């Protein structure tokens, strides 16, 4: 049997996280009047105390001891509230550090004292090769985590050369181009633990959360905004766009849950289903963000509305762990077993 519905206990964990985020980190925190800098580092210690970075780490490693299921449910909420991508870097970075036996680094990361950034790799379908070029995301971090299908690596800032900070697509997230000459010492092979696949599931969940938030924002707006004497949501052109957004969310979340269940039970199909999930979840996030902008009309093009953040974050995350075009190539190397 296949049961894709979270238990009430699992849902309660996600609800608790959502309550914290709603109270402390509403998406309005990203509006330009607050700051054009990333506002999230100021919450990092509090999030660490809540155990947000160690949900899926076992208790011996100082973690909460949950499974990938709890992590996926949590990341859907992180996506909904546009939590800075360093959350993914921290959760996955702690996992690599833990496998590498670096207990001090683990405790630094999960406490929130040592946030971890991400590296988008310049690579082909065979994987990443050293020396190689990267784009760093959250480029002010001291540590960076990255992975391909065979390995996951955790690198110190000093491991990179030619590091050039650049204006980033999402103004709140720092980006830099860099090179890395040698494979970092902290390296975990996928055969030992498929950390990259786990990261992909968390990206999927984040993308779903963003798709849902974009949908909710769009629906709320088109119910209120009136033109020609009625709410624009009554017009089929607008209504149908919202229906398509909802359908994409349903597809992406269902597939993410299926892939998560496969990974949790170490099914033969887990890799295939995860790649499929990354494709549909990325597609949903990018297209729903675009539809959210369109539904807001001129306001959607401004920085007063959060719609643009959903779009930019979706593109950032698309580049982490291999973008959609690469995922499609990887999917064609697999066969479904379910």
């Amino acid at each position: 049997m296949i049961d894709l519905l979270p238990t009430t206990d699992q849902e309660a964990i996600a609800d608790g996280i959502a309550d914290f985020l709603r109270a402390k980190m509403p998406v309005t925190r990203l509006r330009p009047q607050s700051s054009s800098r990333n506002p999230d580092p100021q919450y990092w210690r509090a999030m660490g105390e809540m155990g947000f970075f160690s949900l899926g780490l076992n208790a011996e490693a100082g973690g909460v001891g949950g499974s990938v299921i709890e992590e996926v449910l949590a990341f859907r909420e992180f996506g909904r509230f546009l939590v800075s991508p360093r959350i993914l870097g921290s959760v996955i970075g702690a996992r690599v550090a833990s496998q590498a036996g670096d207990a001090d680094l683990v405790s630094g990361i999960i406490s929130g004292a040592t946030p971890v950034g991400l590296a988008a790799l310049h690579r082909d379908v065979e994987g990443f090769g050293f020396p190689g070029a990267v784009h760093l995301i959250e480029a002010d971090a001291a540590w960076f985590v990255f992975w391909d299908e065979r390995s996951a690596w955790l690198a110190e800032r000093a491991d990179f050369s030619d590091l050039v900070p650049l204006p980033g697509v999402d103004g709140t997230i720092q980006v830099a181009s860099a090179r890395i000459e040698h494979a970092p010492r902290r390296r975990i092979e996928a055969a030992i633990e498929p950390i990259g696949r786990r990261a992909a599931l968390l990206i999927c969940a984040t993308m779903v959360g963003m798709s849902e938030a974009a949908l909710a924002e769009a629906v709320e707006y088109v119910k209120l905004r009136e033109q020609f004497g009625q709410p624009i949501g009554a017009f089929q052109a607008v209504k149908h766009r919202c229906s398509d957004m909802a359908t994409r969310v349903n597809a992406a979340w269902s597939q993410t849950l299926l892939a998560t269940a496969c990974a949790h039970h170490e099914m033969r199909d887990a890799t295939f289903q995860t790649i499929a999930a990354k494709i549909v979840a990325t597609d949903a996030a990018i297209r729903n963000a675009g539809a959210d902008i369109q539904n807001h009309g001129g306001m959607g093009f401004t920085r007063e509305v959060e719609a643009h953040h959903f779009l930019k974050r979706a593109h950032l995350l698309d580049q982490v762990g291999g973008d959609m075009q690469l995922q499609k190539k990887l999917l064609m190397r697999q066969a479904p077993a379910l």
Partner: protein
Amino acid sequence: MRIEVTREEELFREEVRDWLHDNVPKDERPTEDVDMGRAMRDFDLAWQKTQYEGGWAGLAWPKEFGGRGLAIDEMLIWHEEYARAHAPRIGTCFVGINHAGPTLIARGTAEQQTFHLPQILRGDHIWCQGFSEPTAGSDLANIKTRAEVDGDHLVVNGSKIWTSYGHLAKYGELLVRTDPDSRKHAGITWTIVDMESPGIEARPISTMTGPDDHHFCQVFYNDVRIPLSNVVGEINGGWSVANTTLGFERGTAFAAEQIHQAMLIENLIDLARRPGPDGRPRIEDGEYASRLAMIRAEMAAMRAMTYRSLNNAKRNNPGSDGSMIRLYFSEAQQRLKRLAMDILGPAGLELSGDEGWTRLYLRSFSVTIAAGSCDIQRNIIGERVLGLPRGPRAQ
């Protein structure tokens, strides 16, 4: 959240697999153009009879009505093995098994159930559905086919359209307007009609999959007398009965079709691995590979949506996701068939057999129209799921 295979499920799967292996017809299913579809109907009925004799008829029907009473998880196993065994499509038996039977089980009288249900299960006859009319398609409640009560009969005048296999069916489900002063949903009655009654004329409609397809009919009813004992539910209470039927149509009955489509993308990937018109496998071309991968991912997601929907239904928490699944499924399979044409290249110009890609491509234009067009599905999602303001609607 879990995925597990229990010992019972394993045994059940083995039982299904063994039975299908021994009983799936070896002969190819005749196409619609042979003897105006009669050969195909007889083939479908014979296969239905085989399933009945093996104890596999009416899988979802409750046991007290002669069905197998399978749980949802067992149904999925059956459909998966059914697709793997290349068993024939349910075809002309669809309306009887998936619409009429379940409606009679839910709303029919004891007499109607006793008379009709065994015949449907045994594969004695096929049924057809007389719902849509030339002026009532998406706006189904606008039907005008008139039925007057005359003694203990209804007398029906009017015409129905898009009646699949209307010329081959013994019985039909018919929606008629019994109260001429009523508007829309009120005043409609759901009745069984014997398609061999005097005054019925079924004219096949030639469609774009032709030139010789015999699928849809327009059916004309001229002073057709139907015993009142054929009415299902109350006179003027047919709309709620019809919604029972539509509920089945949009529910689990599509799981089998979805599994079939998921297999089609794998077939198409195999085709793309063979040399194309330029001698090179299409799959080596990035554009084809990208489109194949996208549809492969979408087909996976479609199944995941179905599983989640069935999980919800099992917890007595039926979601309003039926329209989303239907919409996603229809459009994805349309893209799949279009991609098949592009992969075939010049070979796609040959009008294939019934299950060949060109025929499937042409037929795919109906899937975004039939059983509630995609436009209607989007309205339903927008209004019932998202709570957006309703659009124009006559009262």
